[in-house]
């Protein structure tokens, strides 16, 4: 016999000991598909026959079966299963996972079982046990259907067992092999004229043949998907049904049932239903149709499948939407959800059920397209979209083109039916549905061990302890997560130089990029200020609408670890207003077709942000060193004059140190100047990272600096240019030139230079992402990093042993995460998806790395 078993089934083998269940399971199913109570007994107690271990063994069996079903794997339970109570918990487990239940009943003569048992060497099963089990089996058989088994296969002889074979039956909803492209249309409700207009707009050709049958065809082979609720309320229900049935039978459309089809079908089948919510219109229009047509409609509605999984699982369509756990599953619950949605049990002031907003909790990979609830404008929420724009209520009929993700709509020609509940209305600065649902982020999205998928680098893993550290940082110190769409990657210095008195030198940076196969790099002067990420919006409304923040700000300035740059928000907004004016006056907003930008910049003076650090660390060292060295010098001078041997040597040493300490003091003083108001600030933007619809990491650094250059003329007292030099790596003169420039820059007191590939994102010839930038700091600047005396040979020799591997690996991972987050933001992905990237960068930054690098 050939059985067809649905792919998402929990199969219970039911039969007495000795019926041959395990032998059968081994022959018929994958070893991993079978969960055996005996094996579980063995796993927990080392003895498969240990009856004392039964309770533990079954707990384990449930866990395994549950995990398998959650992952959508067919599962076979090899246990006697002859008692209703032992089946009950398995049945409810299957229901939890929306699995179908199949029983394979071994109804074999008692003698057969006894014979099998007699041949066993591993255990002896008493006759009366087998006898009792067979009695229980017979009592069970009639109950299985009522218990909820969809399919019961009975094997009543050894021949039946021998000849049994089966095949896996895909569920009706499984249409993964259909790849579209699709045009997915929301609730039509008899709006035939608008449907025809929309199909025309989408490029479909519709014709009616002699036998009044519709034919539908798209020259590019596109396919329609109807999300249900074709009927009721509207003027031309029969025409719509005719058109859709024709399209489906031509293979040009898929159709789902809605709750209105479900009710109409019941009525057509003669069941008792309340005629309301526009069913009257359908019934009146159907009544004038031929009995053949009515029968055809009934058959058609009967054949509809409650949801589809399409395009390798990347697209799911259902009338009222579907949570991820139900995708591709078949159960009454799944059907009910797909048709009616899940309600909270409460009703609103119009007496309608308050719907549970499953989409705000949706975290699945598949795009879910649905209808059912009319909305004024389709909006993305967690990769789901409701395209029912209430055509019958005077709204529009909308199609979502897949995979393009574009919307095509036809406005209703008139209002056919008055809505009971007004269709929502949004004001211009209101946050989107997505933003509203994510006003509060969920801990699940930022806790524990994580894996973030990036376009540039694939999966990036975050360890639990780092993730915890990042959560603390974000919660206690960071700006509002709505603003925090990006964090800059850490930057590695060049490998250590072996030149005398030198720890870092441009040559090592050039060598790195040359080794990675680049021929040209760009060097930019590194400003000595504090890193400032700056989001500037045209006005408050843009900030509220695009970023979902509260009123009162037109942007944000934050540090490289996501903290507010300014303590005083008024100062922040003042600076943003000035940058905003420059963006406007320069025409950059217009050129970018955006009403906001994200700038990566350096804000000076250093003392603005680093004042406590300068005072507690640098000035303190300067002062304390100067006093101590002067006192030591004085004491040694006296001893020297007394003729104490060796005092002069020690004193000479001290004089060298006093000199180096003075140089150290000069360095930190150079970067400190008092700033009482915004007038003293200097801003040097060097990356124009993103604007509406675009992440500019596909541009060269030259492009970035050119765009930024246009800002300068409108506010020369604020902006500071970033000088740059291009270097041909295989041209000795060009390299020497650049080294000389570095010497100049650092002699003038500059911090150093940053060496970058020409393109923002660069790969080596093996296709791997390389460092986005390498810094080369100046000899004097390094004194405040490594201390006044670092340049003494004995110290330098020790300092040269510094490992860069961790720093460089972090730089690349953080870079990939930063770019990923920006792409997600620009593509209007949910905030949690953006936040995940920022959280991951902070988590990586929490790893211990030498802070002097």
């Amino acid at each position: 016999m050939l059985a067809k078993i649905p792919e998402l089934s929990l199969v219970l083998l039911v039969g007495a000991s000795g019926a041959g269940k395990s032998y059968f399971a081994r022959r018929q199913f994958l070893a991993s598909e079978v969960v055996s109570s005996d094996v579980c007994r063995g796993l927990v107690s080392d003895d498969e026959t240990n009856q004392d271990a039964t309770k533990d063994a079954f707990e384990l069996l449930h866990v395994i079966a549950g995990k398998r079903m959650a992952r959508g794997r067919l599962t076979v339970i090899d246990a006697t299963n002859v008692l209703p109570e032992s089946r009950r918990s398995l049945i409810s487990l299957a229901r939890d996972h929306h699995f179908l239940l199949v029983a394979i009943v071994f109804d074999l003569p008692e003698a057969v079982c006894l014979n099998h048992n007699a041949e066993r060497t591993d255990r002896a099963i008493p006759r009366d046990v087998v006898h009792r089990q067979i009695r229980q089996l017979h009592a069970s058989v009639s109950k299985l259907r009522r218990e909820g088994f969809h399919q019961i296969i009975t094997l009543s002889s050894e021949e039946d067992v021998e000849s049994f074979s089966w095949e896996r039956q895909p569920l009706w909803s499984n249409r993964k092999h259909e790849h579209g492209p699709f045009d997915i249309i929301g609730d039509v409700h008899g709006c035939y004229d608008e449907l025809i207009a929309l199909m025309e707009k989408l490029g479909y050709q519709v014709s009616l043949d002699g036998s009044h049958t519709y034919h539908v065809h798209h020259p590019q082979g596109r396919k329609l998907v109807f999300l249900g609720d074709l009927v009721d309320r509207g003027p031309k229900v029969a025409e719509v049904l005719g058109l859709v049935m024709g399209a489906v039978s031509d293979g040009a459309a898929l159709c789902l049932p809605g709750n209105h089809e479900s009710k109409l079908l019941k009525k057509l089948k003669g069941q008792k239903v309340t005629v309301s919510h526009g069913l009257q219109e359908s019934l009146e229009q159907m009544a004038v149709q031929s009995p053949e047509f009515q029968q055809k409609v009934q058959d058609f509605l009967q054949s509809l499948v409650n949801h589809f999984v399409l395009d390798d699982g990347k697209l799911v369509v259902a009338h009222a939407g579907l949570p991820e756990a139900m995708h591709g599953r078949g159960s009454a619950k799944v059907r009910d959800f797909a048709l009616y949605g899940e309600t909270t049990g409460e009703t609103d002031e119009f007496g309608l059920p308050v719907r549970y907003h499953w989409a705000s909790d949706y975290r699945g990979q598949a795009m879910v397209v649905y209808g059912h609830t009319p909305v004024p404008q389709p909006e993305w929420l967690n990769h789901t979209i409701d395209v029912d724009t209430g055509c019958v209520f005077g709204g529009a009929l909308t199609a979502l083109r897949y995979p393009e993700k574009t919307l095509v709509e036809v406005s209703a020609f008139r209002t056919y039916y008055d809505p009971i509940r007004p269709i929502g209305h949004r004001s211009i600065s209101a946050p989107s549905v997505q933003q509203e649902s994510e006003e509060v982020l969920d801990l699940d999205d930022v806790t524990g061990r994580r894996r973030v998928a990036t376009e540039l680098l694939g999966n990036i893993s975050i360890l639990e302890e780092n993730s915890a550290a990042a959560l603390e940082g974000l919660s206690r110190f960071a700006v509002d997560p709505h603003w925090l769409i990006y964090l800059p990657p850490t930057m590695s210095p060049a490998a250590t130089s072996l030149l005398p008195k030198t720890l870092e030198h441009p040559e090592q940076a050039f060598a790195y990029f040359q080794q990675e196969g680049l021929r040209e790099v760009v060097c930019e002067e590194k400003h000595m200020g504090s890193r400032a990420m700056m989001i500037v919006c045209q006005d408050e409304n843009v900030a509220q609408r695009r970023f979902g923040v509260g009123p009162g700000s037109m942007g944000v300035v934050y540090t490289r670890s996501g903290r507010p740059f300014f303590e005083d928000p008024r100062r922040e907004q003042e600076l943003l207003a000035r940058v905003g004016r420059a963006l406007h006056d320069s025409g950059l907003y217009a050129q970018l077709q955006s009403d906001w930008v994200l700038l990566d910049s350096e804000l000076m003076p250093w003392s603005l942000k680093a004042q406590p650090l300068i005072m507690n660390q640098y000035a303190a060292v300067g002062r304390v060193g100067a006093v101590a060295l002067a006192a030591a010098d004085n004491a040694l001078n006296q001893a020297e004059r007394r003729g104490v041997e060796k005092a002069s040597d020690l004193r000479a040493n001290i004089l060298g140190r006093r000199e180096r300490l003075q140089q150290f003091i000069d360095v930190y003083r150079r970067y400190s100047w008092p700033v009482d108001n915004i007038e003293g600030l200097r801003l040097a933007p060097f990356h124009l990272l993103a604007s509406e619809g675009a992440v500019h990491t596909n541009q060269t650094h030259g492009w970035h600096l050119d765009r930024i250059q246009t800002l300068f003329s409108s506010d020369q007292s604020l902006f500071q240019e970033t000088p740059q030099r291009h270097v041909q790596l295989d041209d000795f003169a060009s390299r020497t030139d650049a080294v000389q420039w570095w010497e100049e820059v650092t002699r003038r007191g500059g911090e150093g230079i940053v060496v970058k590939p020409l393109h923002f994102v660069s790969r080596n010839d093996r296709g791997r992402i390389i460092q986005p930038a390498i810094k080369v700091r100046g000899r004097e600047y390094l004194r405040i990093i490594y201390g006044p005396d670092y340049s003494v040979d004995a110290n330098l020799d020790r300092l040269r042993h510094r490992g860069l591997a961790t720093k460089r690996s972090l730089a690349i991972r953080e870079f990939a995460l930063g770019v990923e987050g920006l792409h997600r933001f620009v593509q209007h992905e949910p905030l949690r998806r953006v936040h995940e990237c920022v959280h991951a960068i902070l988590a990586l930054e929490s790893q211990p790395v030498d802070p002097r690098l």
Partner: protein
Amino acid sequence: MNGFMLLTITTTHQPATDLGFLLHKHPDRLQSFPLSFGQAHVFYPSADEDSCTAALLLDIDAVGLVRTGRGQEAVTDQYVNDRPYTVSSFMSVALAQVFGTALAGRCTARPELALMPIALQATLAVLPCDGGASLIRRLFQPLGYTMSIEGTLLDDHFPEWGNSPYYTVTLTATLPLHQLLSHLYVLLPVLDNEKHYYIGEDEIAKLLRHGAGWLHAHPDRDLITWRYLKRSRPLAEAAMARLVLEGEDDVPDSPDSKTQAHPARTDSLSTERLNRVVEEFRNYGAKRVLDLGCGEGRLLQLLVQDSTFHEIVGLDVSPAALKRAEKRLHLDRLPSSHAGRLRLLHGSLTYRDRRLQGYDAAAIVEVLEHLDRSRLASFERVVFEFTRPPLVIVTTPNVEYNPRFVGLADGQLRNPDHRFEWTRNEFSAWAHDVSLSFGYQVRIEGVGPTDPLVGSPTQMGVFMRNVS
């Protein structure tokens, strides 16, 4: 980076050159001694019959300290910091190693001189003291020193940056040399509040040995012990118990009351706060309770002792605080009857957290004021909408009371991490607003002594969920 510390000791006791015998170092030579953190040099800038000065110069190798992992706690992870110039415990270590015999009061050549009071002057070129000149005076004056203390600007190019926390100090007194050295040995690290190396039990022994004969009678004995042992409560308690035995004095007060950096956070107030929370929980009949922002677990400790609470969950955003709570609560050693009753969770009150649903009551003690205002809306929704326990208790400082605290400057908040502190009106407005939005009734009370003008130091809101 290398650092220098210089101590000079001068005597005018004649013949002054006897200082060479007392210190066991020849006045005409410069001698160098290797130490674990660098080198010590001893030499004499002057040495004649009338006056003799010995100098102890420490040359501290900071690069070595960081790179070898030695003393990493002290020198932190920065090459550039003032520690190599100022870690006073380096000086103590050097005193013990270079002048060990003198410190012990022994001298073979001049045994009676070693124990005799002589005119001495000690000068420290740079002495760090976060407690300011007054603390230096407070510690040395009772020991009979006259002193000169010179402060200095942090940077004369930027006078607006103010004074540095460093002083050039000269101590003058007539006393035996070993006493001077003992005073310096104990008190230099006390002035310097930074931790240097791991403080273990043997530090108590060193403190008692070098404090013998003078520490038990010092009016700031408790402060000295407390700071010498770097604020390790168990060590300080053990040391003080033994000091009391030595001095046969009465039992000292808790050191906290005098030395806490923030007098605004007194022990008694925080205890009263926690007791009030437990009382509210009990009166309500809560069985399953949450401590949101549990910190190091002081409230949890009280809750665990009360068997009416069946399930207790502490949540905090700081993994480090949770680790300390785990220790304080001896989570690994709870008797099995208690195991499972208490759980610690890492989480954040600005993120929705499904683990917190279904509890009877939540306490949020002194947490609110640590949140940025822009995050309050999320906090409110997380607590009152998603977690939504029937009883919520929120406590926060009453800023009006701040002027009643000694040591709080005008307008200064009670803790540097506080983002705001509310007046009674502000808290009340917030509490009523939240109640209205989320369906709660709130009762507001003060915790701590009530002042007729400014109210109590802490304000507490008791939120009861409306019966739906």
